[in-house]
């Protein structure tokens, strides 16, 4: 840089000398000099004008931004319950706690914001200046003031050095936060070693190739009189750098294959692990423990109701759902029949609101009237009736066939425990059986290196063994540390607000905690005997159980 600046200064000095010399040479032709002076003056004034314009725009933008950034009313803990859309159930537990360094963060943010603004302003001015000066000098001397090839060549080298040191800094500073080497699950340790192997290999390749790229750019930059080497191909070299990556990648694949097997085949036949159902919905999670009988009861989306949020096949609830649905269909039907009347009364309301000059009420009523007029309301009601009728039909068909009935209503669901937190036992294999109510979600437990999509209508599962209790993890990572299960597949408005606390404890602690939780439904006093055949499989849904069996068979093969 220095070099180029010096060069530039030299060029400018030479230019001035030439300028004076030329003027002396043509001193006798006064008119010509004046005209050339004017033309030069013109270019300079134009550029000054341009600069002033840019500065003005920047000033205007700055004042605009400074007005818009409301520094005095910074709200950090301003998230009351109203601002977050409250779902039907589930996320009430998530209470936002303001981070402790709020004030410091704010100050940093404000400072950064202003320095950003300043930076951009300076940048634009510098660029404009550089451009104008170089253009001007180029115009006057007829030669490019800077040998841009040389400048760029040096920046290439500087970029390489700065870039590599920045990379090293990133590895050291931000790499510290990376979840590596501290896995809290059994397969996590294997995962981490796989990751480290890949990391080391790729880092080596990264450093070498980037160095070559930028060094070659620097070293073989254009020089006058230099001619490039005519070297079109070298088969041996090409074969060499085809085979080496191929070998390295094959090794990586083999190792990756082992790791993958250790993750997905942790419990192939599903006998070694405890089953816990993870239920995802917009926007929250529930965990369902099997309860005393150790069997997860059957659940189905058709049985979901206000009281039975997971849709367990609990007969009294299902019966009351049927009643509810029938009532809802009737009321929909009535609403459908009453549409003309509703329209009239709405029109009357609108007139009243118009008389009252109530703009807000007017617009909301008008919207409703439009909805009825264009048939949306009618369509909605019809669709709703159709949907509920279908649901009733489906529930009825389950109850009609004794064999199907027996697979659904197994009574195993009565003692199931539905919780908002997930408590797992250390060093005990656990299988999550995922079920989604509505959208594809993804359950991600980053500290356990575990993730699986939760797909509606398609049961998925993930088996792993936690190896570190929350207490141990807190000792390592600080007292604020908690394990969480995050949603990692875009699932709607509050996707970011969908997580579940995970606690790893000893068996006794988990048992004690489960005792404090209420079973989903209180067991009825007289338990009706259920054929043992239907109790064998603990899958959540009967129709899925067959799927699971086929999957297991496939896996075994």
């Amino acid at each position, binding site marked *: 840089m220095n070099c180029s600046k010096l060069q530039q200064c030299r060029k400018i000095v030479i230019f001035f000398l030439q300028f004076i010399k030329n003027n002396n040479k043509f001193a006798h032709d006064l008119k010509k000099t004046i005209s050339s002076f004017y033309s030069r003056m013109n270019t300079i004034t134009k550029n000054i004008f341009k600069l002033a314009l840019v500065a003005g725009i920047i000033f205007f933008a700055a004042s605009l931004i400074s007005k818009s950034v409301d520094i005095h009313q910074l709200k950090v803990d301003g998230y009351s319950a109203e601002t977050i859309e409250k779902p039907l159930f589930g996320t009430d537990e998530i209470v936002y706690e303001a981070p402790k360094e709020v004030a410091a963060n704010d100050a940093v943010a404000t400072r950064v914001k202003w320095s950003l603004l300043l930076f951009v302003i300076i940048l634009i001015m510098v660029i404009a200046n550089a451009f104008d000066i170089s253009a001007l000098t180029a115009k006057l001397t007829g030669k490019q003031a800077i040998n841009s090839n040389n400048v760029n060549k040096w920046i290439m080298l500087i970029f390489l050095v700065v870039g590599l040191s920045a990379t090293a800094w990133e590895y050291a500073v931000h790499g510290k936060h990376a979840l590596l080497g501290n896995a809290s699950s059994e397969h996590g340790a294997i995962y981490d070693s796989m990751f480290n192997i890949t990391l080391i290999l790729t880092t080596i390749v990264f450093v070498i190739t980037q160095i070559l790229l930028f060094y070659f750019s620097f070293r073989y930059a254009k020089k006058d009189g230099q001619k490039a080497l005519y070297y079109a191909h070298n088969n041996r070299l090409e074969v060499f750098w085809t085979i080496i990556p191929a070998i390295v990648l094959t090794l990586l694949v083999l190792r990756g294959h082992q790791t993958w097997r250790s993750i997905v085949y942790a419990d192939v036949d599903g006998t070694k692990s405890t089953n816990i159902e993870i239920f995802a919905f917009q926007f929250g999670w529930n965990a369902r423990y099997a309860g005393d009988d150790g069997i997860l009861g059957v659940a189905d989306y058709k049985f979901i109701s206000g009281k039975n949020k997971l849709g367990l096949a609990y007969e009294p609830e299902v019966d009351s759902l049927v009643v509810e649905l029938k009532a809802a269909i009737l009321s929909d039907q009535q609403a459908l029949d009453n549409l003309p009347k509703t329209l009239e009364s709405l029109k009357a309301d609108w007139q009243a609101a118009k008389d009252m000059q109530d703009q807000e009420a007017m617009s909301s009523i008008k919207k409703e009237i439009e909805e009825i007029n264009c048939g949306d309301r009618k369509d909605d009601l019809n669709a709703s009736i159709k949907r509920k009728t*279908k649901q009733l039909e489906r529930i009825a068909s389950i109850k009609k066939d004794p064999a199907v009935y027996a697979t659904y209503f197994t009574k195993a669901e009565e003692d199931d425990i539905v919780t908002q937190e997930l408590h797992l036992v250390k060093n005990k294999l656990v299988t999550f059986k995922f079920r989604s109510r509505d959208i594809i979600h993804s359950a991600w437990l980053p500290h356990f290196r575990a993730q699986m999509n939760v797909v509606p209508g398609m049961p998925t599962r993930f088996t792993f063994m936690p190896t570190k209790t929350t207490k141990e993890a807190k000792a390592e990572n600080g007292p604020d540390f908690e394990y969480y299960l995050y949603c990692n597949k875009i699932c709607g408005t509050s996707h970011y607000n969908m997580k579940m606390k995970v606690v790893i404890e000893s068996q006794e602690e988990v048992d004690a905690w489960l005792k404090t939780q209420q079973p989903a439904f209180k067991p009825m006093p007289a338990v009706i005997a259920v054929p043992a055949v239907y109790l064998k499989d603990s899958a959540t849904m009967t*129709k899925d159980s*067959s*799927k699971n069996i*086929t999957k297991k068979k496939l896996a075994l093969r």
Partner: protein
Amino acid sequence: MSSSTIQNNTTPKEFSPKTVIIWLLIVASTMLFLAFCSAYFVHQGDGLRNNAWLKFDLPFEFWLSAGIVLISSFFMQMAYRAAQKDDIYKIPSLLTITLICGIAFCISQFYGWLNLMDRGLFLSNKEPAEISASFVYVISAAHFAHIIGGLILLTVGIARASKLQIHKKNLVFINICKTYWHFLGILWILLLLFLYFA
């Protein structure tokens, strides 16, 4: 192609750019139907595993359309032969017969859908198992859309043939018509066999 062939000016007309364009279009729509068929396969696999896959007889009209499309292809081929033999005054009528067959195909398809609806199988499935019917609708409708395109092509072909623009030395257009029309015929027969056996 090496440099030695650059002076070769006897390249067959079949490889004129326009013919290649139609072949590429055929490749593209084949991919579309492959996507449909693989989706069908996957769904069928899932469905059979859950005992939720309805196997039903394809409407008789679909087989009829296959016959019609075979006849139309025959006439199309005759038209092409006529053009090759420079029998130019026969081309418009042969193409028109092909077009009429095409329209008959459309009508037959339409009755095929009516047949399905009579049996209570609609586009929107009421039961999980009935999703097989949805597939039949979508696949046949996509083919139907292709046939419409073919009919337009044929109409243009008839107009050109009537202006005597299709002859021994200008086979490009009729070649395009022929290729596309045969493709549609073969495609329908393959789809039908796929839906029948799969």
